[in-house]
């Protein structure tokens, strides 16, 4: 019985993942970083990493999950949590609906339980295709529910950040999600449980200034933009051009804010290894 459900779940994730793993272009795709063309098939098989320069294309949430979870272990948490319009902001509903149509997601976050290398965990993923992965009340709520679920069930937690920052149309309620998610992580941490934060391109604004920066372990994909203020704002403030590589993953590691830069092809093994190293977590 369980086996049938697991197979069904594996198929469902695979289907959603295929839809997510779409990079525009016909047989050939051109890399926005090095400009070189590669076979679409080679890019897709290589986890959407450019075979020529190692550029990491953004990943859809379900596809991301399919690249790290053991087959058949995926079980989505709160899939029906709706997007909201708490300030009745003009034009926002339409914007949400068109993002939903474009991505097949209800909001910018997908959370799930699953296993990596046979070890159960809770994983949350932000999807930058949905309004830049910005922090809405629904995103904050979903992340908080996932943290609370992990706390209650004494499971390790992995969150993949990808966010342009605040959801403007939700104003102050977007801001408050920073306090909400951070407070939930404080409670989670009290239980002696492991939280791994993975920063992907881009991780900025309110997400950086909350859950993304609070991991026991912080990993980053190569070349990701990571910061609180965006480069354009900084440039305007200081009136100078920014140095090469500023706010990228490698820069953040040099400045002490990232434990390791991990290429996507090694992410699953790295996570499995970290879960194994923390096996005895969870104070009684």
């Amino acid at each position, binding site marked *: 019985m369980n086996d049938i459900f697991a197979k069904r779940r594996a198929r469902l994730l695979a289907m959603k993942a295929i839809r997510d793993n779409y990079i525009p272009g016909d047989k050939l795709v051109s890399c926005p970083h090095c400009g070189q063309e590669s076979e679409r098939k080679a890019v897709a098989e290589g986890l959407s990493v450019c075979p020529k320069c190692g550029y990491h294309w953004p990943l859809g949430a379900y596809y991301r999950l399919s690249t790290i979870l053991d087959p058949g272990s995926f079980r989505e948490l709160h899939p*029906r949590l709706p997007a909201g319009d708490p300030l009745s902001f003009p034009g926002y509903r339409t914007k949400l609906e068109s993002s939903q149509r474009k991505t097949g997601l209800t909001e910018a976050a997908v959370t799930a339980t699953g296993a990596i290398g046979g070890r159960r965990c809770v994983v949350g993923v932000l999807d930058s295709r949905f309004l830049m992965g910005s922090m809405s009340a629904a995103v904050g709520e979903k992340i908080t529910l996932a943290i609370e679920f992990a706390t209650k069930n004494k499971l390790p937690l992995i969150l993949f950040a990808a966010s342009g920052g605040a959801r403007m149309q939700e104003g102050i309620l977007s801001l*408050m999600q*920073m306090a909400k998610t951070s407070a939930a992580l404080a409670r989670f941490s009290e239980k002696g449980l492991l939280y791994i934060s993975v920063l992907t391109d881009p991780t900025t604004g309110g997400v950086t200034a909350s859950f*993304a920066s609070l991991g026991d372990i912080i990993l980053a994909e190569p070349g990701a933009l990571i910061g609180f203020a965006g480069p354009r704002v900084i440039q305007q403030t200081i009136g100078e051009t920014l140095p090469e590589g500023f706010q990228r993953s490698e820069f953040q590691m040099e*400045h002490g804010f990232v434990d390791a830069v991990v290429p996507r092809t090694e992410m699953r093994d790295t996570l499995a290894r970290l879960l194994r190293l923390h096996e005895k977590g969870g104070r009684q």
Partner: protein
Amino acid sequence: MSELTAAQRVAIARHPQRPNITDYIDALFTDFFEQKGDRLCGEDGAVLGGVALYHGRPVTVIGTRKGKTLEENLNCNFGMPNPEGYRKALRLMRQAEKFRRPIFTFIDTSGAYPGLEAEERGQGEAIARNLMEMSQLTVPVIAVITGEGNSGGALALGVGDRVLMLENAVYAILSPEGFATILWKDASRHEEACDLMKLTAPDLLRLGVIDDIIPEPEGGAHLAPAIALRQVDRAISRHLAELDSESGKSLVAARYQKFRKMGAAAPEKENP
């Protein structure tokens, strides 16, 4: 309460003669001892903090500092903290907990400083750490938004058991100018942004983001500072008295629930 537009309130909130952290410390507290430095690498004048007596009782006071003259403005970076400011604030809050002192924060900032070095030293991490640790403090925390409270830079001092706002203060995700720039690529539409952003005290009280509004003299606190300061004193002492009867554990639990509810969807029954 007067019928001011949101944009008018923004102008009052930014008035250079509006009472600021130094005025609050002088009027409401005695024997203030300023504590400098984050004990990691620096001192940030944009955040002022220390220990003082409040009606004879030791408390920790922390606030953002903008200054009133240009020289003062420059000395404290126009009230835009660097990571050291937030880390100093956290150091003082931990100390307040150690010595079982209540904490008052006074917030008036256009935001965390978006500078190159602020980024190098982890502006995002500093703010995140404050949010996380403030949620766990076992002493009463009362945050007062006195002028402008913008972005994570304001929230980093704002995780309180009580969040109070002066009548004409504003609290928002960023400045109306920034909002209009991001949303419409047109900073000149900031007045329109003011109306949509729900940044006034009455709006925020309705949304459950703040707990109380402190009345101001007609036309704004800068027109009759002494009256405004007295109103703030009255409000914070009343709220402190309420919190005094709570144990540390119940303060933490109630603070968690307070922020937990913000933007929460209707409860959903699902068994994963």
